[in-house]
C-alpha cells in the first residue's frame, strides 16, 4: 500500500510542480482572486455591504492591503473520496454536513424503558405489551417534536420546523424486537454483521431503550443541556396519555425521575465552570462514545485503519473545529489544524503503511505482544516514515505547513499503529507520545507553545487509571484535564480508540447502547462514512435537517 504513496495524486492536483520539486514561484498568483470561493465571498459581501450600509468581508483588509494568496491557495482532497474542495469549504460554519454531525449527537439522549415499565406494571397495575409500547411510541412521535397530548388549548410547534425529531427503540431481545412496529425499531440484526449483532444483543439483553431525537432547533435555541429535559417532559406526557395515568400523582414523579435521570444516557457530560457547558455539548463527549457513534466498523469490519480514519475525521471536526475552534476560541484559525488529518490522503498513507508493517511483523492485527517494545518499535517506524515523506516531497511539507499539523498526523499514525498492533488503546496513546518527542528531536520543532506542553507529560499518564492521575483513553475526552486546550489531539485520540477496538473486531468500544443508537438509517448524516458526508457538505450537496422556511417570508 505504501509503495503507491496515496498522497501523490492530491499533491499533483494542488501544485503544478512535481511533488519532489524544492523550488517554486511566489507572489504571482493574483492574491485572493485565484480562488473561486474567495471571489464568491467578495461578490456576496459587496451585495451585503450595499444593502446594510456597513462594510463587510473584504480580503483587501488583510495585512493592510496584502491579501491572502501570495502563494498558491491550494485545493484540498477529502481523504478516502475523489472530492476536491477549497479550504473555506471545510470551515464548520461553511459546511452543512459538519453541522449535521454535531446536531445529530447533541439532540440525542437514550432513555431506558425498563424502569417505567416496571412502575406501570407493579405500582399502577397497568399491562405493558408490545401493542401498548407501539401505541406509546406513536404518541411520543407526535409529542417529542412539539405536539400536545394531555392538556386542552395548548400551543404547538409547526411540524415543518421539527421534521427531524422522532423516537426509535432497540432491544437485544429478538422476540420483542419482532413485535415492535418497524417504523420505530432500530433493527440490530439488519444494521450489523452477524457477529457484531450477536455481541451487541448479548450485551444489551432484554432491556428496551428509546433513542429520542429532540428537534435540532431546540438544541440550537438553548443548548445540549436542555435535550434530556425536553425529552423527559415529552416522554412523561406521552406516558400519561398512552397509559391513561393521573397527571400529578406521586408515581408520575418517578416517571419523570426515570426519564430525566435514572434511565438516561447523555452523549456528553457537563464541563467545569471555566469551560461551562451543560451535558450533551462537545467538551464532555468521551472519545470512546464518539468512536461508538461512528458506524464505520459495521460496514468495514475488516479494515481497522478505515475505521480509525473515519473516526479521526469527524473527531477533528467536532473536537477541534467546533469545540476548540468555535466554543473555546472563536474565529477561523482552527480549521487548518483539523483538516490535516482528513485531507489529501496523507494520514491514510501513513496509517496504511504502518498497518502493513504491523501485519508483516506480527502476523496480523491485535497480535503483537502488549509491551513497551512493541510500542517503541511501531511508533518509531511510523514517525520516521512520515517524517521522511515530508522531507522527500516538499509539496507534502508545504501542504502541512504548520508544525502542529505534521505533529498531529505523525502521532496519529503512530497511535493508530500501536493500537492496531496490540489491540489496546492505551498502547496507542503511549505510542502517540513517543512520536511527539521523537519528532521534536528530529526536526527541532513541533507545534505551537500550548500544543507541545501536554505531549511532554502525556507518557506519564497514558497507563494510569487512578482518579486524578489518569483514565482509560476510551473514557477521556476534551474535558480530561491534560486535554483541555488541546487542538490537534482529541479527534485523533478518538481514532486511536476506534483503531484498537476495530483491530480486535469488537462490535463496540465503550458502550453497546450508544453504538446501536446511531445505527439508525433515518439519520441524514451517514455515520458509516463521515468523510463522504464532509465531502458532500463541501460540495454543497448535503441537505441538512432543520430549517425555518415555514415561518419566515418566501426567499
Amino acid at each position, binding site marked *: 500500500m505504501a509503495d503507491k504513496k496515496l498522497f501523490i495524486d492530491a499533491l499533483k492536483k494542488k501544485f503544478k510542480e512535481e511533488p519532489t520539486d524544492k523550488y517554486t*514561484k511566489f507572489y504571482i498568483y493574483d492574491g485572493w482572486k485565484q480562488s473561486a470561493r474567495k471571489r464568491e465571498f467578495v461578490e456576496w459581501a459587496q451585495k451585503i455591504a450595499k444593502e446594510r450600509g456597513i462594510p463587510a468581508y473584504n480580503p483587501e483588509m488583510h495585512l493592510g492591503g496584502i491579501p491572502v494568496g501570495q502563494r498558491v491557495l491550494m485545493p484540498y482532497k477529502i481523504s478516502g473520496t475523489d472530492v476536491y474542495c477549497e479550504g473555506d469549504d471545510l470551515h464548520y460554519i461553511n459546511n452543512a454536513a459538519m453541522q449535521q454531525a454535531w446536531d445529530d449527537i447533541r439532540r440525542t439522549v437514550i432513555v431506558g424503558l425498563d424502569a417505567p415499565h416496571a412502575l406501570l406494571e407493579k405500582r399502577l397495575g397497568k399491562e405493558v405489551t408490545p401493542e401498548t409500547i407501539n401505541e406509546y411510541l406513536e404518541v411520543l412521535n407526535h409529542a417529542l417534536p412539539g405536539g400536545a397530548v394531555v392538556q386542552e388549548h395548548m400551543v404547538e410547534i409547526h411540524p415543518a420546523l421539527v421534521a427531524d425529531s422522532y423516537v426509535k427503540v432497540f432491544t437485544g431481545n429478538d422476540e420483542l424486537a419482532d413485535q415492535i412496529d418497524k417504523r420505530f425499531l432500530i433493527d440490530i440484526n439488519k444494521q450489523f454483521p452477524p457477529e457484531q449483532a450477536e455481541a451487541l444483543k448479548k450485551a444489551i439483553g432484554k432491556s428496551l431503550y428509546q433513542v429520542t431525537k429532540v428537534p435540532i432547533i431546540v438544541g440550537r435555541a438553548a443548548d445540549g443541556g436542555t435535550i434530556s429535559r425536553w425529552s423527559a417532559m415529552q416522554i412523561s406526557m406521552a406516558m400519561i396519555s398512552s397509559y391513561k395515568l393521573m397527571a400529578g400523582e406521586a408515581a408520575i414523579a418517578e416517571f419523570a425521575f426515570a426519564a430525566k435521570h435514572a434511565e438516561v444516557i447523555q452523549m456528553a457530560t457537563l464541563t467545569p465552570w471555566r469551560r461551562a457547558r451543560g451535558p450533551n455539548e462537545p467538551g464532555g463527549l468521551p472519545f470512546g462514545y464518539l468512536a461508538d457513534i461512528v458506524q464505520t466498523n459495521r460496514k468495514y469490519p475488516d479494515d481497522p485503519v478505515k475505521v480509525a480514519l473515519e473516526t479521526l475525521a469527524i473527531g477533528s471536526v467536532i473536537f477541534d473545529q467546533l469545540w476548540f475552534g468555535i466554543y473555546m476560541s472563536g474565529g477561523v484559525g482552527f480549521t487548518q489544524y483539523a483538516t490535516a488529518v482528513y485531507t489529501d490522503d496523507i494520514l491514510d498513507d501513513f496509517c496504511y503503511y504502518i498497518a502493513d508493517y504491523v501485519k508483516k511483523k506480527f502476523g496480523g492485527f491485535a497480535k503483537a505482544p502488549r509491551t513497551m517494545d512493541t510500542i517503541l518499535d511501531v511508533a518509531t517506524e511510523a514517525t520516521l516514515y512520515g517524517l521522511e515523506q515530508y522531507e522527500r516531497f516538499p509539496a507534502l511539507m508545504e501542504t502541512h*505547513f504548520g508544525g502542529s499539523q505534521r505533529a498531529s498526523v505523525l502521532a496519529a499514525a503512530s497511535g493508530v499503529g500501536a493500537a492496531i498492533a496490540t489491540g489496546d488503546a492505551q498502547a496507542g496513546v503511549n505510542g502517540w507520545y513517543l512520536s511527539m518527542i521523537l519528532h521534536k528531536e528530529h526536526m*527541532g520543532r513541533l507545534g505551537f507553545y500550548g500544543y507541545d506542553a501536554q505531549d511532554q507529560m502525556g507518557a506519564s499518564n497514558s497507563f494510569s487509571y487512578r482518579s486524578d492521575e*489518569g483514565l482509560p483513553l476510551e473514557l477521556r475526552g476534551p474535558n480530561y484535564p491534560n486535554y483541555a486546550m488541546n487542538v490537534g489531539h482529541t479527534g485523533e485520540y478518538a481514532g486511536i480508540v476506534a483503531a484498537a477496538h476495530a483491530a480486535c473486531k469488537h462490535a463496540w468500544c465503550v458502550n453497546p447502547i450508544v453504538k446501536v443508537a446511531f445505527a439508525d438509517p433515518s439519520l441524514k448524516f451517514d455515520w458509516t462514512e463521515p468523510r463522504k458526508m464532509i465531502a458532500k457538505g463541501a460540495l454543497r450537496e448535503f441537505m441538512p435537517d432543520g430549517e425555518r422556511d415555514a415561518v419566515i417570508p418566501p426567499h
Partner: protein
Amino acid sequence: MADIKVKGGKYKPAYPGQTIVAENRRKYLDPNYELRKLRSISDEDVVRLLGHRVPGEAYKSVHPPLEELGEPPCPIRELVEPTPGAKAGDRIRYIQFTDSVYFAPLAPYVRSWMAFWRYRGVDPGTLSGRAPLEMRERDLELVAKELLETEVFDPARVGVRGATVHGHSLRLDENGLMFDALRRYVFDKEKGEVVYVKDQVGVPLETPVRVGKPLPEEELKKLTTIYRVDGISTRDDPELLNWVKRIHLLRTYAGFKLNKAENM
C-alpha cells in the same frame, strides 16, 4: 555584551548523538563556544530591523533605574546581577525568527535552548514556524546583533519576522529564499545579497538593511541542527534515537510503575 552572556565555566552540553547535527546542537548550546562571525551589520541597521526605536533615539523605560527604585531586601536580588537593560528600566521588546526546514542553522527548540544557555534575562518562545526572543531593549539589541552576524543566521533560510511568519515549511523561491507574504526582503541579484526593505513587522524602511549573501546548501548542511532524510537522518543516529526512547520509557514507567523507572 559580557553582562548579558552566561558564564559557561566547566559546563559541557550533554545533548546526545554522534552526527554532525548533534555536534552542532552541542556547539550552539555551549556558552563557552564563540559563535563564528560571518557578516557585519551595523548597530543602526540592527535597530532599524527591529523597529522598536529609531537609531539614536533614547530607550523608553517602564520603571526608574533600579538604583533609584529602592528595592526591598531579597536574597534572589542579591544573587542575580541585573542585566544593563534591567538596571536601566528598559521596556521588554522582541526579535522573532523564522527558520526554514531546508537546513536552516537553527530550529525553534534549539534556538530556545541556546538562548537559555548563552544569554541572561531572556524569555524565548518555541513554536513550529517562529521563535520569539524577548529581552530588555538594550540587551536585546546586543543579542540580536550576535544572532544576525554569526553562523546561526542565513539570509535566505532564516527570516526576521514579527508577524505573518508563514514560510518555514514552504518550498523555496527561484533564488532559494524562504517565502514571506510581506516580502520584507528582496534578493539583490547583482550583488547576490539579501536586502531587508521592511522591518520585522513589515513597516517599510527608509534605509534598506543588507544582511549579506546566502550560504551555499553544502555549507548549510555543515551548520544545521535539523535532521533530514536528505541530510543526516535520525535513523543514522542511534544514540539519539535510543536516548529519546529511554526518556519515553522513564516517563511512562514513572507514571505507572515507579519502581521500574527507578531501576532503569
